[in-house]
């Protein structure tokens, strides 16, 4: 590795801000994590900008029981974009500035009103899509929504509830098919 690579790498690793939080005591993930405390280093955004984006993500997709750590994943992804690309960094800086200073501490009603004003902007729409694509793919969201995820490693759902619904009539065999492995 050349010396310029080292400088470039150090420059990239320079921390510009930090977000911190605690997992809720009842969170299933708290049982697995070494500590309930979490911290996210920011590589392009300031702590204030990170906090504003975290609040913005929560206002766009407000799930009260969902950990802040899940929303921090959205900020992490936005920060990575900003660290990669100067134009993206400027877009975030300008967009966050357009929210006004007290956004992170404002009431939900005020935050919604502030976002409504910038709803048509590319900044809002791109961040909304980012929030959609990141938030619901986090392990925190899987736990919150009860989504059980990949099933191959557990033999699929064939013997784990794929047909356990009992509040509707059963489908006649002629419209479906037998369980595999049974006579057909």
């Amino acid at each position, binding site marked *: 590795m050349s010396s310029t690579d080292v400088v470039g790498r150090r420059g990239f690793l320079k921390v510009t801000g930090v977000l911190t939080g605690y997992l809720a005591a009842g969170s299933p993930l708290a049982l697995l994590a070494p500590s309930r405390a979490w911290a996210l280093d920011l590589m392009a955004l300031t702590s204030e900008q990170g906090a504003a984006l975290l609040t913005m993500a929560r206002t766009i997709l407000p799930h009260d029981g969902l950990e802040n750590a899940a929303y921090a994943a959205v900020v992490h992804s936005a920060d990575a974009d900003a660290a990669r690309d100067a134009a993206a960094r400027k877009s975030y800086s300008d967009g966050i500035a357009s929210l006004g200073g007290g956004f992170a501490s404002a009431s939900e009603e005020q935050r919604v009103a502030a976002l409504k004003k910038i709803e048509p902007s590319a900044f809002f729409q791109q961040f909304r899509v980012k929030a959609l694509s990141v938030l619901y793919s986090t392990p925190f969201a899987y736990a919150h929504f009860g989504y059980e995820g990949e099933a191959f490693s557990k033999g699929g759902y064939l013997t784990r509830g794929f047909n356990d619904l009992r509040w509707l009539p059963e489908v006649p065999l002629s419209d479906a*098919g037998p369980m595999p492995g049974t006579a057909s």
Partner: protein
Amino acid sequence: MAKFEFNDDGVVVIIGSGAGGGTMAHELTRRGIRVVLLEAGKRESLASFSQVPNEAFAQLTWLDPRTSSGDWAPAKTNPGLPAWLSKTVGGTTTHWGAVTPRISPWETRARTTYGEVKGTSLIDWPIAHEELLKYYALAEERMCVTRRAGNPGLPASNHFKVMHAGARKTGYQRVHSGYVAINSRAQDGRGFCIQQGFCVQGCKMGAKWSTLYTEIPRAEATGRLDLRIQSMVTRIDHGADGRVNAVVYRDANGAEQRQKARVVCVAGNALETARLLLLSESGKFSRGLANSSDQVGRNYCHHVLNFTVASFEKPVYMWRGTSQAGLVEDEAINDPKRGFAGGYFIELVGFDLGSLPLAALPYGWGRDYASFMDGYRNMAAVMIVGEDMPRPDNRITLSRTAKDAHGLPVAHVHVDEHANDIAMREHGQRQCRRVMEGAGAKRVVHSEGSPFATHNLGTARMSTDPRDGVTNAWGQTHDVRNLFISDGSVFSSAAAANPTLTIVALALRQAEHISREMTARNI
């Protein structure tokens, strides 16, 4: 696996390894023909398929840029990724939902059945439906389609129970767990479906048919297939006689290679197939290869797609089980009293948590949106897949603004919806709402179109009159005798059926024709 010389001019070069190209490779090699199969993507396997949905998407999807315009939904929601298709060995057969209905007889006579529909370029197919039936039967047997070829249907999942109850309440009669190319019992050297709900991420059981682990390894076993991965074709060359004679591509290292060919089959999916023909313009073919009719890229169809998601009082767990094992056939008819020409299927569609908002609920935010998502456990989802109208100006052209990694213009996709498409979608929304409410839905939400196209058709269509299309009834181009199109580009009209079964049926038929014509030394 075979390795043929670049200057071997006796080989058939197939471009693309999906449903069409992968099937062609097997069919030609087993008849003794030597084949070079060029695939732009990498080769995955049952073991390497990622089961993290985001990673799987990146692993299998064609992510090279495209551009789009027009009033259809993808130009607004995903202008840089207007079509979701694959770049990997096996093509879209790695990520498809494996839904395999047939095209109906009246659909192959679209212009005759619907009469003149203003603002469309409808034609009849140059193949009689009776002729197609023979190849449908072969394709269904090959692909182990449920409820066909003696195969049992898949068992009813929770999600299908909801669809079935609601559809029966709506009065539908033809409601079942679907024609899907997924093993309902172990056969063909592959296991049976264990209801993972991860069809789209690549089936790690191999229960779902894909050329990646059926046709392609069988072609390799003949010793006559030279599969070259990460090989992106940039042009097809021809000689002074107007016949194609070589294919130029970039290999995995970005180096340009040139493979001579006796016959070329293009199966790059309707977007890339049209793009490649347009890129291959020359002094003789100034508008693009095989494009004397100016029909290459035109008449692009992508189906009328729309999602309906509903929440119920009790759990459904729609992610548990085969993603698309549920079908209503009753609306796949032509009944002008409904206010539009053509028909549509209602299909079950299960989503993992990460994909649901992006695919089916891409709009909206705030408390209302979040409260709906909070009901994920109790949700069911269906989609309509219907025939859209071909229009001359709905077309693939070469982008004026964006280039790929090799400096070549990317595909630009333009679509303005026809009034018939919109009327069908609105009818579909009403009917899907009735189905969901029939099963007791508390709340029903519709998308407005699909945020991306998945069925790409018609951009090099078969026509009786060479002025109306690009190929004859064999997928052989009207202009160039030894150039064939082997994917959904050749559909003369969109019909309602998910296209893969028909692509495979047409490939089985085309391979017979090519083999016969090569033996007769006509090509």
